């Protein structure tokens, strides 16, 4: 799929902007703080019904204005849809699909993106929560039904933790806990599904990650992904209760989860918190048999993060019925050395559409510069192909550059 046109009204620092997109690479250039990331953020929001930068929607509405509008035309397999989203400061957001009313959550079906951002380094170096979010985002993109399972698990977890806490506070262990078995059952049923889906995803990622890592790093460092499951006794390192671990058991995920929960019940009552389950799981990334976190160099960590994004794009592409996901490379080239830049550019070349933002035009390999849009202080200054002279005072009519397909 590809985005053909984007129109923003009162979104972040854009009062009004109209941007034409080309198939293949699109480069957005401008100094820091001019609005490049804001532009791609609007597309990320449409495709995931959430921003990667802020949990509050109002942060995306231009100051002193009541509502922001994102209007985006997407083309996939020769068909074109118009997605419109109005972010309201004081009421619910509104969505339109081909000019008729829809739900904001529905829009995600029509636009699929994979975002590469400087924050991705945290996938390798950050806390387990970052890796869980990465896996869950890809899971939902592959199978939207799982959004419901994840939300339900979260709800059951909060109910169960509240029950454990109140039991601890009141010192009651008998009748007040009569419902704990029921919550355990729901936790195990939903949690096992998440554990199995994540494990399947990790298994599917192994080959594409190895290929992508070799392509980006230019060498084979034997990247591996090792699931760390708390139901099997693993202890991810953000665990504040690291002395507590489940006894490893055998059998189906449900059986292992159920026996882990049963074995930890008195500990859970002491602490008033659920100690095992997918909400505490992690996945360890390894290079040459050593954990990337703590051992890998800056460059290696970056290559691993990029490989994870490339691999997830690859998986989405394989299962997609609406063409490739749109790749968004937000400010990543500045972080890479010359050789990695060229190799990353080569890795994304085959995708239907790639959106790149950069502060410095020269940081981006020539192959990705075929359609360049210059951005300054929340306005699109010029659009066109690379040979275009930059003339800030002159708005050049949008001109679709050569595609690279």
């Amino acid at each position, binding site marked *: 799929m590809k985005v053909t046109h984007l129109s923003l009204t009162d979104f972040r620092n854009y009062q009004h902007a109209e941007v034409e997109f080309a198939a293949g690479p699109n480069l957005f250039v401008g100094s820091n703080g001019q609005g490049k990331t804001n532009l791609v953020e609007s597309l990320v929001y449409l495709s995931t019904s959430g921003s990667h930068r802020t949990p509050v929607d109002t942060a995306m509405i231009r100051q002193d204005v009541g509502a922001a509008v994102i209007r985006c035309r997407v083309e996939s397999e020769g068909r074109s849809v118009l997605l419109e989203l109005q972010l309201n400061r004081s009421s619910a957001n509104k969505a339109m699909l081909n000019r008729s009313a829809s739900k904001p*959550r529905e829009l995600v079906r029509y636009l699929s993106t994979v975002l590469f951002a400087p924050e991705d380094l945290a996938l390798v170096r950050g806390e387990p929560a970052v890796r869980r979010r990465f896996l869950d985002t890809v899971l939902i993109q592959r*199978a*939207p*039904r799982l*959004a*419901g399972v994840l939300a*339900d698990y979260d*709800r*059951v977890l*909060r*109910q*169960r933790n*509240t*029950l454990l806490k*109140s039991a601890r506070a009141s010192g009651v262990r008998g*009748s*007040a806990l*009569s*419902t704990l*078995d*029921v*919550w355990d*059952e*729901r936790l195990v049923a939903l949690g096992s599904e998440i554990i199995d889906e994540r494990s399947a995803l990790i298994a599917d990622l192994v080959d594409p990650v190895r290929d992508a890592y070799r392509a980006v790093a230019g060498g084979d460092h034997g990247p591996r992904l090792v699931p760390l499951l708390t139901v099997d006794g693993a202890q991810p390192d953000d665990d504040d209760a690291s002395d507590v671990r489940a006894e490893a058991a055998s059998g189906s995920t449900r059986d292992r989860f159920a026996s882990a929960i049963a074995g930890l019940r008195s500990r859970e009552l002491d602490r008033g918190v659920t100690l095992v389950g997918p909400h505490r799981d992690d996945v360890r990334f390894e290079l040459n048999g050593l954990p990337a976190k703590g051992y890998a160099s800056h460059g290696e960590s970056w290559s691993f993060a990029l490989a994870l994004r490339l691999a997830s794009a690859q998986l989405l592409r394989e299962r997609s019925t609406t063409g490739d996901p749109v790749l968004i490379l937000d400010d990543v080239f500045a972080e890479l050395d010359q050789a990695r830049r060229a190799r990353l550019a080569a890795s994304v070349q085959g995708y239907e559409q790639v959106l790149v933002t950069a502060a410095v035009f020269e940081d981006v390999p020539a192959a990705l510069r075929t359609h360049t849009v210059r951005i300054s202080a929340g306005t699109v200054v010029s659009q066109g192909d690379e040979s275009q002279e930059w003339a800030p005072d002159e708005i050049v009519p949008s001109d679709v550059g050569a595609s690279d397909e």
Partner: protein
Amino acid sequence: MYEGVVQDLIDELGRLPGVGPKSAQRIAFYILQTETYDPSHLADVLTTVRDKVRFCEICGNVTEQTTCSICRDPRRDQTLICVVEEAKDVVAIERTREFRGLYHVLGGAISPIQGVGPDQLRIRQLMTRLADATVSEIIIATNPNVEGEATAAYLSRLLQAMEVRVTRLASGLPVGGDLEYADEVTLGRAFEGRRLVG
């Protein structure tokens, strides 16, 4: 802010569920300005509703007598009890005209976050209704969300020991709709609950 009693009226209306500040203001000015509207009738109903309406001693449904009209009706099938969360669920199921049995209103669902456990629900009353063995089937019709499912699971565990059939309402596709408009979660559930044809 308006002066005195006008603001009091707006505030009071705004405390009702589903009424925001703007709606409250609109209703308040309708009452003030519409000459043909007599608010005394509403005032009467509001003062009597709390006094008159009570909860059915058997099923917990709302009624003006000690038992509700459904429990009093001898034509209803006394062997079936449909367990629901709220009285408004009774109305919803009655609209179908499919169910001819009796009801039991729990008064909510198990939710530790809201401080609701089995003791806060009318579960003990349900167990007493089962004592004389006339009831042969319990249909659990709690909401298909996390709390409703937990309540259903709790009840089914509790009822396991009794000589009674326990069933749960199916969840699946809305009738008359197109498959393509169903959301993924509903469609996924419908897949899980698929059944053999013929």
